[in-house]
C-alpha cells in the first residue's frame, strides 16, 4: 500500500493531464457570478472561486498546465544538460574547464531570479517559464554527466572499442552515451518535482500562463485575495501541488536507493 500510493497518484495525475474530462464534466473556464465563492458541496464538490468557476474542474485542468510545463522544462534541461555534459567530458581540457565554469556560474544565480531575468527579456507566458526553469536546471544534469563521462572514457570497454578501430562517433553513441545516462532518470524524477514547484511559483507571480487559464500557481495567486472568506479556493490547488511534489520526490528517492544499491 505504502509503496504503491505515490505511484498510483502519479498515474491518476497523468490521466488528468491526458483526459481531464474523465474527472469532471464541468468547463474550468465557465464563470457563474451568481454562484461565486460557494463552499464545497452541492453543485461544486470543492466549492467555487471568486468568479463562480468550479474549483474541482480548475484543479483537474490545472494539472495539464502545471505538469506539462514541468515535464517540458525537465525534458529540455535533461537534453541540454546531457549534451553539454557529454561535450565537456569529451572536450580538450581548456574547453571542458570553460564549460564547467559556466555551469558553476549558472548555479550561483538563484533559480527564481534567473527565471525573472528570462521573463523580463522574453515576456511572460508558458514558453518563457519552460525556458527559464530549464536554464536553471541544466547545470544539475550537465555536472553529473560530465563526471560520469570522465569515468566511462577511461573504462576498459571504451579502450577496447578504440583498439577495434571503431570510429569516435560510434564509440560515443554506442558506448559512452548509454553508460553516462544511468543516474538521469532518478535526477529527472526529483527534478520534475522541483520544476513543478518553480512553475507554480512563477505563475503565482503572474509570469506563467495568463488568465483565465487554470494553473495551480495562478489559482493560488487569485485565491489569496479571498483567504478570509473562501479557504477552499486556496486549499485544493495548494494540496494538488504539494501531493504531486511529495509523490515525485518519494518515487525519485526510491529509485535512487534502488540505483545505488545495485552493485556496479
Amino acid at each position: 500500500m505504502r509503496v504503491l500510493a505515490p505511484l498510483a497518484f502519479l498515474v491518476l495525475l497523468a490521466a488528468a493531464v491526458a483526459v481531464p474530462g474523465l474527472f469532471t464534466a464541468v468547463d474550468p473556464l465557465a464563470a457563474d457570478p451568481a454562484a461565486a465563492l460557494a463552499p464545497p458541496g452541492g453543485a461544486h464538490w470543492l466549492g467555487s472561486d471568486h468568479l463562480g468557476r468550479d474549483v474541482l474542474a480548475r484543479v483537474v485542468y490545472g494539472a495539464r498546465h502545471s505538469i506539462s510545463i514541468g515535464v517540458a522544462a525537465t525534458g529540455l534541461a535533461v537534453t541540454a544538460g546531457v549534451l553539454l555534459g557529454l561535450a565537456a567530458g569529451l572536450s580538450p581540457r581548456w574547453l571542458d574547464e570553460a564549460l564547467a565554469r559556466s555551469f558553476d556560474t549558472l548555479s550561483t544565480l538563484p533559480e527564481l531570479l534567473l527565471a525573472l531575468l528570462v521573463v523580463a527579456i522574453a515576456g511572460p507566458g508558458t514558453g518563457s517559464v519552460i525556458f527559464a526553469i530549464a536554464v536553471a536546471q541544466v547545470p544539475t544534469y550537465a555536472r553529473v554527466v560530465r563526471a560520469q563521462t570522465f569515468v566511462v572514457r577511461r573504462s576498459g570497454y571504451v579502450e577496447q572499442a578504440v583498439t577495434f578501430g571503431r570510429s569516435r562517433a560510434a564509440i560515443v553513441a554506442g558506448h559512452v552515451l548509454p553508460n553516462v545516462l544511468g543516474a538521469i532518470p532518478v535526477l529527472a524524477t526529483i527534478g520534475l518535482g522541483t520544476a513543478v514547484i518553480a512553475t507554480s511559483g512563477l505563475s503565482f507571480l503572474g509570469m506563467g500562463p495568463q488568465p483565465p487559464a487554470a494553473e495551480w500557481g495562478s489559482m493560488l495567486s487569485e485565491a489569496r485575495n479571498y483567504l478570509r472568506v473562501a479557504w477552499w479556493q486556496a486549499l485544493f490547488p495548494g494540496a494538488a501541488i504539494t501531493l504531486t511534489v511529495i509523490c515525485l520526490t518519494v518515487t525519485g528517492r526510491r529509485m535512487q536507493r534502488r540505483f545505488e544499491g545495485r552493485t556496479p
Partner: protein
Amino acid sequence: MIRRLLAGVAVMWAAATAAYLALLLAPGDTVDILVGDGPDTPEIRAGIIAEWGLDRPEVVQYLAYLGRLLRGDLGRSYQSQRGVGEILAGQVWPTAQLTLAAAATGVALAGVIALVTAGRGRWSRTAASAAELVSVSVPPFLVGIVLLSVFSFTLGWFPVSGAAGPEALVLPALALGLPIAGVLGQVLRDGLERALEQPFAVTARARGLTERALVARHALRHALLPVVTLAGWFTGTLLGGAVITEVLFGRPGLGQVAMQAVTGGDLPVVMAVVLLSAVVYVTISTLLDLAYRVIDPRVRA
C-alpha cells in the same frame, strides 16, 4: 586560499558577462524602450543614442559596462531614469532584514529538530524525515498563504501586509525559514547520529562525559560539516524565496523592485538585482568555505 578567491572573481565576471549578453539578446530596440511614451523625434533619438553611447562598437560598450560595474555604477533604470544603485539602496535593508530573520529562524528550528530527535529511535527518525519531505515539497508561498490565513485572518495576531514594526516580520520570516528548517534539521540530525556512533564518542563517554556535553563539545562540530556544504542551496533558496515572500506579504524590498522591473521590462534593474544576488552568493559561499577550514582542521592539512 587565493585560488578560491580567484575562482569567486571569475564566477562574478562570468555572471556580469552573461547579464550583458542577456541585454544584447533582449528583443526590442533599446532606443525604443528609452523613448517610451515620451515625444519621439529623430533629434531626441540621436540625443539618447549619444547620451547612452549606443553608437559605439559592442566591444567598447561591453568594456565600458564592466568598468562601470567595477566602480559600483549599476546603470540607469529605463523606467524612472534614476540610477539603479540609488533605487536599490533603499530596498536592501528590508530584504536583508527578511532573509537574515528567515535564516536565523531556519537554523534555530533546525537545531531544535536535530537535538530533540537525534538518537531517539525510529519514531523520531520517521517524524524528522516526514518534516523534511514536506518542507521540500510545499511551495514556499503556500507556507506563507497558510500562515496568513491562520495567524492573520483567523486569529488576527499579525498584520496581513506591510513592514511596519517587528511583528510584521514574524510571518514572512517563518514562511521563508520553515522550508529551510526541514531540510537543514534532517541533515544536522543525520550528522549528529553518525557522530554519536564514532569511536571518539565512545571514548568521551568512557571519560565520563554526559551525553549533553558530548553533543555540545564534540558531536555538533562534526554534524555541522554537511550543513556548511549545503550553504549554496540555502542562500539561493533564501534569495529566490525572498521575492515571492515580499510579494505575498506586501513587504518593500529588492524582490518587489525586481517584480516591478520585470513587469515594466526594466532590464537594468532586473539585472542589477540578479548580479547583486550573485555577489551575495559568491561572498557567502567563499566565507563558508573558510569556515569549513575552521570547523574541520583536517581540511587545512
